[in-house]
């Protein structure tokens, strides 16, 4: 199940990234290398092993429904590359969903 340039295009589109042809070829190689490295795991028989969704055995870590201190608006916006008034500001995007 080798990665093709088409797969790279698809994943790049999902990640909103653009690659030139040379970069894309390098990605194909890198991704195939990563996959073959991970292939090693398939040598293990995991028929009797439940999928792991969390690395601890903890369950029901819950908190009471009580308000905590929130950030001031200026602090919330302080890392924003662009802002206007109390808002984060981004280039117009309608429906890229």
């Amino acid at each position, binding site marked *: 199940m080798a990665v093709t340039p088409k797969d790279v295009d698809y994943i790049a589109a999902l990640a909103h990234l653009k690659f030139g042809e040379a970069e894309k070829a390098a990605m194909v190689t890198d991704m195939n290398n990563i996959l073959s490295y991970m292939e090693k795991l398939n040598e293990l028989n995991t028929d009797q092993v439940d999928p792991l969704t*969390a690395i601890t055995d903890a369950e029901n870590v819950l908190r*009471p429904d009580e308000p905590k201190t929130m950030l001031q608006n200026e602090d919330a916006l302080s890392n924003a590359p662009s802002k*206007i008034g109390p808002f*984060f500001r981004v280039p117009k995007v309608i429906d890229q969903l």
Partner: protein
Amino acid sequence: MNHPKYEAVIGLEVHAQLSTKTKIFCGCSTKFGAAPNSQVCPVCLGMPGVLPVLNEKVVEYVIRMGLAHDCEIAEKSTFARKNYFYPDLPKGYQISQYEDPICANGTVRFKLEDGTEKSVRLMRIHMEEDAGKSLHDQHQDTFVDLNRAGTPLIEIVSMPDIKTAEEAGAYLTKLRQTVRYLEICDGNMEEGSLRCDANVSVMLKGSTVFGTRTELKNLNSIKFVEKAIEAEIARQIDIIEEGGKIIQATMLYDPHRNETRVMRTKENAHDYRYFPDPDLVMVHVTPDRIDSVRNNMPELPDQKQARLISQYSIPAYDAEVLSADKELAAYYEAVCRETSDYKAASNWVMGEVMRVMKEKLLSIGEFSLSSSQIAGIVNLIKDGKISTTIGKQLFEELLANGGNPAEVVEAKGWIQVSDTGAIEAVIDEIIAANPGQVAEFLSGKDKLFGFFVGQTMKAMKGKGNPKVINDLLVQKLEALKK
């Protein structure tokens, strides 16, 4: 809508914002209408290194919703990341549930306009977080307010058991009523507390193979849900009749033109690459936990309806009208605590009270008369102190100027006259003043009896006891016949 050749297959996905005080994974307030980006913290802003912790109320509320619809409550369920990029989703993924939702396989039962009972199966109910809000129309750029990011949602997914727009509306009405009864969501569609997407397809009647479906997004009132589905069904039938094919797509409904438009097609549909969220541990719901939620469940609409019928001996119709709204039912029951004439209380609440609410577009909470004032009117009538006619006059007076019903009746001199002597004197005057009508009545025109009742009432300014007036008039007029 009933097409002779085609039938529709409809499934609804409903998002309900839970009315918790804080967000699902952090302690930020969820209050509606706060200043932009004032209810945020590193967790809901998606800053690196933070850890989401689940709000215990969210678990309780979603179990309530599941139990109210006979769902199986999963002993173990997990959260997953749904990945997509959009500016109002700061982490680049939405925390949701995917493979093992907390509730599955339920039923929603409701009634249609004509009284038909209908049930729709639920596929699942799961917990997730809401996204923030993008404001597109203020400026050439988009402004983002993240106050809503992380607000707890439950998503209620139906099976494709809905056949018409009317059924979809009735289903949604029942869900809204239920979340309000359960006190888990305010059900306000205009403010977005309850949102609906609809999956719609059509097929030849009797077919078992579903057609290609489209998804209608962001329908923000029950009326629009119905109209959008109607419009989409019609659009699909037209395409098929003209020999075309339905393309799987997401549609937007334009209420001004009453039409649906393609927003995006499947070619650029998303691949959300769900995977388990390693930041959140498993939710384990024990049978004890389920029992404790069940034991603290508020009464459901159908239960309340049944109880109103048995407790107050009112007709099923009355119970249905009164229990449509939880606050209205509470108001009715408050009236009943101060009077023993439950049926009259129901007539007053369903009649005058609801008429005024409708005319002035008020909720029962905004209606100005208290349940004690209504009970006061009911009791004055029950005790024969005023007639129903004066009762309505009193109702208007209380609406206009307020006051204690008994005191107002006293002050206005509206106490009903039941004294036979006084009424007899008035009747004698009416008979003496209307010899023509008396003669006609005596010659067999029985209908004129009403004329005498009316005249007597009028002469007594509505204060005469109708029963006494009737009895005395019968006596007097019969005596004249002999």
